[in-house]
């Protein structure tokens, strides 16, 4: 993938994440902070499908943006073919792992298994 495509995704995910996190914060402001952290309140949020989808999209956007940012930092730190390949694949693997683990949490909580 060309670097310009990667960077377009990087900028796009940043803009998307800012917009969706703003919606997420607005949702949280509908009740006071302490109440919003109550177990029942948190589970109720996950069980509300549109909100669960919002959290899932935020998770994906932030993971892509964050791990690509980490890749860029690591590429500037050291150079070398093997190192750069390891960094790129390592970041993709870590991103996938975070998305899978986060999605699992959203699914379990959303399906009322907890």
């Amino acid at each position, binding site marked *: 993938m*060309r*670097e*310009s495509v*990667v*960077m*377009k995704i990087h900028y796009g995910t940043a803009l998307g994440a800012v917009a969706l996190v703003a919606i997420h914060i607005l949702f949280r402001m509908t009740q006071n902070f302490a109440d919003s952290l109550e177990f029942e309140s948190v589970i109720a949020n996950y069980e509300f499908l549109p909100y669960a989808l919002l959290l899932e999209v935020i998770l994906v956007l932030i993971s892509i943006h964050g791990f690509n940012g980490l890749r*860029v930092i690591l*590429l*500037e*730190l050291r*150079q070398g073919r093997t190192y*750069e390949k390891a960094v790129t694949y390592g970041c993709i693997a870590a991103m996938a792992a975070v998305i899978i683990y986060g999605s699992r949490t959203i699914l379990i909580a959303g399906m009322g298994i907890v």
Partner: protein
Amino acid sequence: MAAIAPQTLEEKPVAVESQSKSITLRISKFNPKTESNRNFVDFTIPYKKWTTVLDAILVVKENFDHSVGVRYSCRQSSCGSCGMKINGKPALACYTKISELNSNTITVEPMDNFPIIRDLVVSFERMFSAHKKLKPYIISEDSEITKDTKEFLQTPEDVEKYLQFSNCIKCGLCNSACPTMATDSSFIGPQALAQAYRYVADNRDKGKNDRLKIIDDSHGIWRCHFAGSCSKVCPKGVDPAMAIQLLRGYLLGFRK
């Protein structure tokens, strides 16, 4: 870093005009082939209002230490040979007047982000290879030198798009000031990127896609963090930071 005892012009019987003002010139001395540490040697040099740092270094070479390694040529900021760090900032020694530095001690060191050959002389190999890689010439199948061909006419507006970027003298000050160059040994650098824009913006050139492909790399244009120090240190008023942002516009599809 060790400082060697200062030498003054009065110690040697040389014919230099009498001066009322003098400065301490600290010159970095280092030969990577024979030494492991950089040393600073101090010299007391008289100066006038118009004395440049290069003039002062040449006084040292002529009267105190012939072995000081310094690269220079035109002495009028046209050749880009005498780039060095003067009091911590990259600048051309021939273009920096001592009287404008407002300091009694002037420290000269080789530019950062370049391998040192000796003393104040650095290797430009990396910068020149990046510059060549970006095809710094007009690519066009048309010719204005063969018979029955037209001149490549350009309007003043067409010229204005790239004119300032064609003032680059390849002195390397921008690369020396760039924070990304300090950590990323494969980064193409602000000098080459500004030159890429100079040809991409030229309406006679047909090599835009080739050049954009070269800079669209994991160590290419996207590694610039827009610190802007390249533009600040350029002695010719070239703005590499702006060139980089304009090139990004092409790659992001905002410019055609």
